[in-house]
């Protein structure tokens, strides 16, 4: 890894020199800028281990980003405590824009549940990277494999939903969905990962699951899993025949989102520079292909206004859910 830093760092310096001399010719105003930004390697901090979904998102962004920023980027994996260690690491660094966080809803829940020193108000969203809508799925051929039958059954008894651990994003989404639909409170069967959940859905161990379309794609194509309703505003391009929950009268939207953020106190012009560079990097062919092939929404990449609003909305939803579930500490 060290070699990978060294060479491009030199390259970055050359680009810097080239840029400076160009600037001298073209726009003398640039010379007045106090310090060039970014000036050194940008660290992208994630709570995901190397090879995890969020880590891969960061690495896909980084294919194009060095060209946009003129410096190298490196991933810092701080896996402990569902985002706690990643947030603590970022908080230990100067707020100069050279440390950016790749966050998910998991971070927000961790901050809420554990009353960490860093809360949502201390974060500034820069850009959204991925947006993966959740779809309600059941086993194909089961008596629940029809939206109306499912809704009727859900109002009569507590259905078993597969999800990741108690107090997770899945748990909050299932809770919020069931509440919006006035279902009998569902039972969560916790699993370690999305793959386990789909397998257990096909195996008949659970009644339903909220999953991203890509997670169950093979099973949907094989006719083993039936997507009942999409928790998105519009129907999904990948599943055009699946109605949205809103169409069925359930006001519920849920998605797995990832995006970049910095800690508050980072100068405004640097936030703007980061937003611009990240958006350009993520609109590159490589990243767009990654979005398409991993089943993410095509309009995943969005600027800071959209992302900041979404973070705030999820924060409110998460606080309500965790309080009702008795999971706030």
């Amino acid at each position, binding site marked *: *890894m060290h070699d990978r830093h060294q060479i491009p760092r030199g390259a970055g310096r050359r680009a810097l020199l080239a840029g400076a001399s160009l600037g001298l010719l073209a726009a003398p105003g640039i010379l007045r800028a106090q310090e060039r930004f970014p000036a050194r390697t940008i660290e992208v901090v994630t709570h995901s*281990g*190397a*090879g*995890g*979904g969020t*880590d*891969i998102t960061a*690495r*896909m962004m*980084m*294919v194009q980003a060095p060209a946009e920023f003129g410096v190298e980027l490196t991933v*810092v*994996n*701080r*896996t*402990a*405590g*569902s985002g*706690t*260690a990643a947030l*603590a690491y970022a908080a230990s660094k100067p707020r100069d824009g050279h440390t950016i966080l790749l966050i998910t809803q998991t971070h927000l829940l961790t901050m809420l549940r554990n009353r960490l020193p860093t809360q949502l108000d201390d974060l500034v969203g820069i850009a959204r990277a991925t947006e993966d809508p959740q779809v309600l799925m059941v086993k194909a051929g089961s008596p629940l494999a029809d939206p109306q039958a499912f809704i009727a059954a859900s109002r009569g008894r507590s259905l*078993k939903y597969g999800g990741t*651990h*108690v*107090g*997770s994003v899945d748990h909050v989404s299932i809770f919020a969905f069931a509440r919006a639909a006035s279902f009998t409170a569902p*039972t*969560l*069967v*916790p*699993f*370690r990962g999305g*793959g*386990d959940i*789909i*397998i*257990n859905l*096909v*195996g008949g*161990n*659970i009644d339903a699951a909220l999953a991203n379309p*890509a997670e169950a*794609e*093979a*099973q949907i*194509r*094989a006719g083993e899993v039936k997507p009942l309703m999409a928790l998105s505003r519009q129907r999904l391009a990948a599943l055009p025949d699946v109605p949205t929950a809103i169409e069925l009268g359930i006001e519920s939207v849920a998605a797995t989102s990832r995006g970049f953020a910095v800690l508050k106190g980072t100068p405004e012009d640097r936030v703007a520079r980061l937003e611009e560079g990240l958006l350009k990097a993520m609109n590159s062919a*490589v990243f767009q*292909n*990654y979005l398409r*092939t*991993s*089943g993410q929404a095509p309009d995943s990449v969005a600027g800071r206004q959209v992302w900041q609003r979404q973070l705030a909305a999820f924060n409110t939803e998460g606080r309500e859910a965790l309080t009702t579930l008795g*999971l706030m500490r």
Partner: protein
Amino acid sequence: MDAFLGGMATLGDPFILLMVVAGTLLGIVVGALPGISGSTTIALLLPFTIGLSPIAALAFMGSVYCAANFGGSITAIMVNAPGDPSASATAIEGYKLAQKGQAGVALGMSAVSSAIGGIVSVVVLIFAAPLLARAAYSFGPPEYFALAIFGLSMCAAIGGESRVKNLIAAAIGVLLATVGIDLTSGIDRFSFGITELSDGIDFVPVLIGLFAVSEMLEQATLRGVPATIIAYTSAKLPSWADFRKCNRSIWIGSGIGTFIGALPALGATTAALVGYAETRRWSKHKHEFGHGSLEGVAGPEAANNAAVGGSMVPTLALGVPGSATTAIILAGLMVQGVRPGPHLFTEQPTLLYAVFASMLAANLLYLVMGMGMAKIFARISLIPPTLLWPGVFVLSVIGAYGPNQAIGDVVVMLAAGVVGFLFRRHGFSPAPLIMGLVLGRMVEETLKQSMIIFDQSVAGFAGRPIALGLLLVTAIGLFGPALLRLVRRGVPA
């Protein structure tokens, strides 16, 4: 059949072949180094594979994956530091063999059994992947629970001299497995407010501490004791008689590894540990176990490499990764526009067979490379302990720190090293502890999941034939011999 031949023919493409050779070499190296595992390497190289054709990218990733599992055994045997977590079972007997001056024999046996295990599993993958993948659907929490209990039931038998001490070590392992946020209640246990502990005690630092660090401490106590020159015989490779002796272990390991690997929730580490326990159970030379048994190297090595092919089964046939490494390979596949699932076998057979062919080639390649290099690696025994062990210690620290970049893991490693040292002094073995740590968490989680699924009624197990069958086999294994003795005693002579 055309698709099969077409797939094999892709190996004739010099670039694909180059990718396989490069992947295999890289895999052996990163596998051998503690701290860089095959999965980390593939994750780091994922952006690089985007630029390749799908076949070249998969051939490369598949080769790294196959070879890394073998590479792990090199450091496990030579310096008691499993380079890859799946090689921990190999260290138990392998390092003892190296100390007896049979490093070359152990390394050679590891290469051969790894390759056989790997090839068996790829052949199974070729012919039975869609069929085997169906089995994954019949394995829910109750079945995994029964399987984990089956694995744990062997704890008393593996490792040290005394069954009581083995059970104590296993109990410590199970206790360590309870540290961290509980999956079903979301409550932090035994973490004392330390963030690093709330995710549970990671397996890798414990492993490195118990094996490598404790060995370094042990070596430190031998200062002043003249080192015995054992290395002259070290470079000897295994003989035909050695292979004949290990034949049965290799097949047991290959079978267990392929099956366990094919289950999405279990990986090569569990496969190797269960493979080790079962090898011992069916061995005719049980007394050699714990003192450097060649069968004890062959069984787990065949198992962890068979788990590689096995874990490709759910990855390719169900789109559900069978291990950490296949999760990354799956992401790589998707970026390439390959959609895994049952239809892959009918829609893109050439691509699939090309992947299988490259995995077969990687297995054969590391067999040749491994045999060739065994004599060189065996000379590590010639390095004076005063130079060797500090070097191993440096590697160990990096290895513990690397995966999570957390200094807390290094502390865990050092603590595990001291525990391991005390274990040795008092006749305990690290093997049951490792087994307790790996399987303990699974027993707890799957039992809790099962109880939620069964609405908190134990009677639910009655409706699960596979789980019941496994529990029955476990009960027979545990109580059968004792009952048999009782019956024999009851019959008048």
